[in-house]
């Protein structure tokens, strides 16, 4: 498949992955972290987020539309690559592969996650601490969510690196290496925040 507009779609894909999707994911993980302060704190925070003014508009324009474009165009990108980590087992080639694997996994994970929470809310269920505690009491679901959160933090951190390269911000090998270190740090920090929040629902 080839189109004259591919260049612009790719750039849009890279941009939307960071703003707004990346920002939203960070915000989401941080708000989840209220769970470590107990049920009440989490419910207050989640109520606050769920009752923001214009919440439907915000959801569609900051989350669903950009996320859907990023997800569906991303799947197309993932399946046009012919991975060859066996031939070149370098760090960057592995990151290239993992970016695509986590991306495809995230489409599945996020679809499931939205079905279990947002769609259930639309059908009248209450999205709160108990709901999550209930879901995560199943060890299989807990593992699924942990892998999901780690995929998201990895995909975001590594995506930040390619954003810096794709837009021509980091050019020299040295600057690209420094950006690598920064994004590895971002991955670690976001992963700790995300997994701590998940574990807070099970103890």
């Amino acid at each position, binding site marked *: 498949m080839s189109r004259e507009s591919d260049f612009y*779609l790719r*750039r849009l894909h890279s941009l939307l992955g960071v703003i707004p999707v990346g920002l939203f994911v960070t915000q989401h993980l941080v708000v989840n972290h209220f769970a470590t302060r107990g049920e009440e704190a989490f419910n207050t925070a989640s109520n606050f987020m769920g009752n923001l003014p214009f919440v439907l508009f915000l959801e569609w324009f900051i989350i669903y539309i950009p996320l859907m474009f990023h997800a569906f165009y991303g799947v197309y990108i993932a399946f*046009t690559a012919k991975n060859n980590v066996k031939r070149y087992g*370098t760090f*960057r080639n592995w990151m290239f592969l993992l970016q695509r694997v986590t991306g495809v996994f995230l489409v599945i994970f996020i679809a499931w996650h939205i079905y279990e929470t947002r769609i259930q809310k639309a059908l009248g269920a209450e999205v709160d601490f108990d709901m999550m505690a209930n879901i995560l009491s199943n060890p299989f679901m807990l593992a699924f969510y942990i892998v999901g959160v780690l995929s998201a933090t990895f995909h975001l951190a590594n995506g930040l690196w390619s954003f810096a*390269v794709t837009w021509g911000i980091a050019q020299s090998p040295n600057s690209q290496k420094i950006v690598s270190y920064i994004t590895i740090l971002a991955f670690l920090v976001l992963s700790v925040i995300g997994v701590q929040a998940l574990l807070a629902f099970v103890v």
Partner: protein
Amino acid sequence: MSEQTAVQEQQVASKTVKFEIQRQDTPDSKPYWESFSIPYRPNMNVISALMEIRRNPVNADGKKTTPVNWDMNCLEEVCGACSMVINGRPRQSCTALVDQLTQPIRLEPMRTFPVVRDLVVDREFMFDSLKRIKAWIPIDGTYDLGEGPRMPERKRQWTYELSKCMTCGVCLEACPNVNDKSNFIGPALLSQVRLFNAHPTGAMNKDERLQTIMSDGGIGECGNSQNCVVACPKGIPLTTSIAAMNRATTVQMFKNFFGSDHMVD
């Protein structure tokens, strides 16, 4: 002493080199593997081994076969014609020394390109792409244009590194995004845009070259696996070139979008 050398020579003579070669008789026929076992000589390279097979086309089973076809020209790693996949990695066969390779030595054509016969591939795609990006310095006019602008010596030095590209296709073979599902022109070509845009006279058409790599099969197809820079036999800083072109196309994109009546710069 002389006895020992005679013994050594005897050993050398009886030593053989094993090859497994992926063959293909016509562009559309099915590839198949054939093994060869040829007498070892010191300092052999893959090409001299292929020449030996051509001289005596007998496979490892002792059966007579057709000579293996391959492409070559300079024999000193500057033309790129002899590129093939050797033990899983694309590289030039003229500088692939048998002593440094694990046996059996597996030879395959670079399947990113259409196979003509055996190890011969058609790199036309790259040459067409060079035309698309205007990989030349336009110096002809209807009258004598005189001297061009001077190029700073230190700039000449780093652009010289980029000019070492021999269009061998190894970086395209290494790239996961150059395949039959995409029409990505490949890392080498993006680096060539940087080379010709860096030249003071070449820069007079730099917006045209940028426009080309912002279209079908251009720089947008790069996924940053950075295999190209590892694979390039000439040590060309391909990923730096790509990032530089990313920056240049970003600027060009904003110029195009917000409107500018300036061409070139």
